[in-house]
C-alpha cells in the first residue's frame, strides 16, 4: 500500500490510543486527588501526570500555578499542548481525513462524528465537575473506534498498520505510566497495606482497566510486585507490555514485502525479554531501569517502522545504528 496512506493510518491509531491513555491517566490522578492524603501536596499529585506526557517544562512556562484546574485544562483541552486530548483527537481526525478512502466508511464516520461531538462539549462543565464523564467519553469513543476498525476494516496491510500504531503507542504509554507511578509510590512501599497505599495501587490498576483482572488472577492483597507483573509480564492482560509485544511481533510477520527484517528482529528481541522475563529479576536490577530501556527500545522500533514502511525512501538509507542495554 501507499507509504503515506500507511503513515496516516498508523498515526491515526496512535493518536486515538494516546488520547485514551491520557484520559486514563487523568482520571486516575483525579481519583487519587479525592483521597485525602496529608503528606501529599496538590502539586506533588499532579506533577507526575505532566512528566508522563513529557511536558512539565512547557506547563511551567505557560501557567503560573500547578493547580488541578490548570493541569486538567492543559491535559484535556489545551490547543497549544501537542499531547493534550484535544490535540490527539484533532490529529487523529486529520490523519483519518487525509486517507479516508483507506478505511471503511463506518470508521471514517465514527472518527468524524467523534471530532464533531468533541467540539460540542461543554468545556466549562468539564473543568468544574464533568471530568470523569469526559474521561469515560474519551475511553468509550476509543473503544468504539477500535471496535468499528476490528469489525469493518478489510484485513489488508492498512488494517495491520492501524493496529501497529495502536500497540506501539499503548506499549509506550503503559511503560510511562508504570514508571512514573512507581517513582511516586515506591518510597512508601515499606508500609504496604496502608489504606492510602491501597487506594493508590488500585487506582493505578483501574487506570489500566486491570483492577478486576488483578483480583481474579491473584485473589490476594495488592502488592507492587504483582501489579508490575500483571502490567508488564502477563500476556493475558490486554494492556500489558507483553500483550502489546505479542501483537506487534504477529502483525510485523504478516506485513507484505521483504523490507521489514530489522523491524522484526527488534520486536522479537523485545518480545523475548518479556516472554522469558521474571519479575523478581527485573525488580532486583530495578524496575525503573527496565522500563527506561523498554521505552528506548520501543521508541527505536517506532523509528525503524517509520523508516522502513512509512517514509519509504526511494533509495536505501542505512538503518539507524542505535543500541541500548537492557
Amino acid at each position, binding site marked *: 500500500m*501507499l507509504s503515506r496512506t500507511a503513515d496516516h493510518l498508523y498515526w491515526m491509531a496512535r493518536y486515538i490510543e494516546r488520547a485514551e491513555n491520557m484520559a486514563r491517566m487523568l482520571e486516575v490522578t483525579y481519583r487519587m486527588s479525592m483521597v485525602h492524603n496529608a503528606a501529599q501536596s496538590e502539586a506533588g499529585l499532579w506533577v507526575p501526570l505532566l512528566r508522563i506526557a513529557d511536558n512539565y517544562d512547557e506547563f511551567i512556562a505557560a501557567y503560573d500555578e500547578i493547580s488541578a484546574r490548570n493541569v486538567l485544562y492543559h491535559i484535556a483541552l489545551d490547543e497549544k499542548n501537542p499531547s493534550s486530548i484535544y490535540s490527539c483527537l484533532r490529529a487523529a481526525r486529520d490523519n483519518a*481525513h487525509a486517507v*479516508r*478512502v483507506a478505511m471503511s466508511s463506518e470508521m*471514517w464516520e465514527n472518527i468524524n462524528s467523534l471530532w464533531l461531538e468533541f467540539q460540542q462539549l461543554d468545556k466549562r462543565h468539564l473543568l468544574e465537575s464533568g471530568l470523569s464523564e469526559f474521561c469515560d467519553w474519551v475511553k468509550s469513543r476509543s473503544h468504539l473506534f477500535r471496535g468499528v476498525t476490528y469489525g469493518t476494516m478489510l484485513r489488508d*496491510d492498512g488494517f495491520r498498520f492501524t493496529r501497529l500504531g495502536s500497540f506501539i503507542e499503548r506499549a509506550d504509554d503503559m511503560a510511562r505510566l508504570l514508571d512514573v507511578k512507581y517513582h511516586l509510590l515506591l518510597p512508601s512501599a515499606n508500609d504496604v497495606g496502608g489504606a492510602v497505599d491501597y487506594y493508590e495501587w488500585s487506582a493505578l490498576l483501574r487506570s489500566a482497566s486491570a483492577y478486576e483482572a488483578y483480583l481474579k488472577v491473584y485473589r490476594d492483597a495488592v502488592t507492587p510486585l504483582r501489579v508490575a507483573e500483571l502490567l508488564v509480564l502477563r500476556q493475558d492482560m490486554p494492556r500489558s507490555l507483553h500483550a502489546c509485544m505479542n501483537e506487534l511481533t504477529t502483525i510485523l510477520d504478516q506485513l507484505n*514485502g521483504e523490507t521489514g527484517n530489522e523491524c522484526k528482529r527488534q520486536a522479537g528481541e523485545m518480545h523475548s525479554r518479556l516472554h522469558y522475563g521474571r519479575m523478581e529479576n527485573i525488580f532486583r536490577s530495578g524496575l525503573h531501569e527496565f522500563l527506561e530501556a523498554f521505552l528506548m527500545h520501543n521508541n527505536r522500533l517506532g523509528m525503524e517502522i517509520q523508516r522502513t514502511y512509512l517514509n*519509504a525512501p526511494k533509495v536505501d538509507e542505512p538503518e539507524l545504528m542505535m543500541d541500548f542495554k537492557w
Partner: protein
Amino acid sequence: MATIQYQNQKLSAFDESFDSQLGVRSVYAPYADWLAGMDFAQLAQKSRDAELLFRRVGITFAVYGEEAGAERLIPFDVVPRILAADEWKKLSDGACQRVKALNMFLNDLYHGQEIIKAGIVPESILTNEMYRPEMQGVDVPGGIYAHIAGIDIVRTAADTFYVLEDNLRTPSGVSYMLENRRMMMRLFPDLFRHYPISPVEHYPQLLLENLRACAPRGVSDPTVVLMTPGAYNSAYFEHAFLAQQMGIELVEGQDMFVKDDAVYMRTTEGPKRVDVIYRRIDDDFIDPLAFKADSMLGVPGLVSVYRNGGVTLANAIGTGVADDKSTYIHVPEMIRFYLGEEPILSNVPTYKLGEEDDRKYVLEHLAELVVKEVQGSGGYGMLVGPTSSKAEIEEFRLRILANPGNYIAQPTLALSSCPTLVEQGVAPRHVDLRPFVLSGKTTTVVPGALCRVAMREGSLVVNSSQGGGTKDTWVLQC
C-alpha cells in the same frame, strides 16, 4: 400541505415544474401529488436529516480564502430536478457531440492545425496562455485529451438549451451527482416507486474502464491512480470518494517519483509502477520541472515521461486552451468542421471585449449583460449587470478598460427555475445542469448530472463558492 403551485409567487423565467397557464408539467405531476401529502414541517425535517448525514459522512468542501481546512457543506435541496427522456436525449446527444468535436480539435491543434489553416479558428489561439507548446506533436492514447468533461447547460424555454461553458481541465461535482442520489433514495424511498429513474451509480465503474482503456501501449493490466493536490483542496472529498469507488490509490505528488523514464509510487512494499494518472491537479502544478517551478504538489519529471508515452494523464495536458471562453465561441464551427453535423446545443451569443465593435456595444449595455473573465471560474471575477449596483458596474468598467482582452460578455439569460425548499416553503430558484461526458473508445454520459441551484431569490449565480446549492437530477427512462 406542501405544494408547487407557487401561490402568490411571480415566475420570472421558464419553470421546470410549473406553467402559469397549464399548471403542473407532466414530469412533475406524480411529484406534485406526493408533495401534497407531505406537510412543510416534514419536508424541512428531511432537509435537516440530510444536512446531518452529509456532515457526518464529511461531504464538505473547503473555500479558498477561509481558514485552512475550514469545511463547509454545500446546501442540498430535497426537491429533485426532473428531466423527461426526450429532453435528456437532446441534452446528452448535444453534450457528447460537443466533447467529440472538442477532442478532435485538441488533437488537431497539437498536430496538423488544419482548423487554423481552414481559417475557422484564428492563429492567435497559439498565443493563448492555456496553449501548451510542450504538447505539440505529442501523440496521446486514442487521440483523447478530455477523458472527463463537464458541460454546463442552462435552459431558458421548453425547448431552448444553451451551453454556458465546457469544462475540460479537471471538472468537479460528479460526487454530488452520486451522493445526492444516495441521499434521495435514503430520505424518500417511496418516491422512487413513482418514477422510472435512470440509475447513475455505475459512473465510477465506467470511469475506471475508460481510464484503464487509455493506458500506454503494451500495458495489459494498468495501475491507475487518482492524483489530488491534497486534503486542503476544495474538491478533496470528491477525489477521495472517486478513488474509493474505483478501488484505486489516492496519491499526492509526494507519493510518486520518476526513475528511468517511468513513474513510480512509494509503497510499503517498495516502488510500484504507475501507468495511468487521473489527475485532479492543474497543469501548472503537475511538474515543477515543466511548469511552475515552485509547485510543491507535483512530481518532478512527470511531464517528460508523459511526452515519451510512459504514463497517461487524464485529462491530457493542454486541454485548457479548448475550454477557454475565447475558444468557446468557435465550438459550433468545430462541430461542423470535424463532424459535418449541425450543433444540437446552442452557444450563448458572446461578445469579445478585445474587439472594438463588441467592446463599444458592451460598454454601452453593461447593466443588461453578464461579463466574465476569459479564464475565470467558480463565479469569481464576474459582473451580472441586472443585479449589480451602479457603483459595482462602474468599478467593473474600469477593470475592463484596463485589460479588455481578458473579458467576454453575454446577454443575461433567464435561467429556468426549479421548485426548491426554502424557509418560506417550496419556491422557484434558478438552476443549471452539468452532465459528465466520458471519452474513451466511445463517448458516453451517464443519465444524470450535477444540478446547481442559486438558493437566493432571484440570483443567477449557482456556483457553490457563491452560496449555490445542489439537487439530485432525475432522468426518466420513459
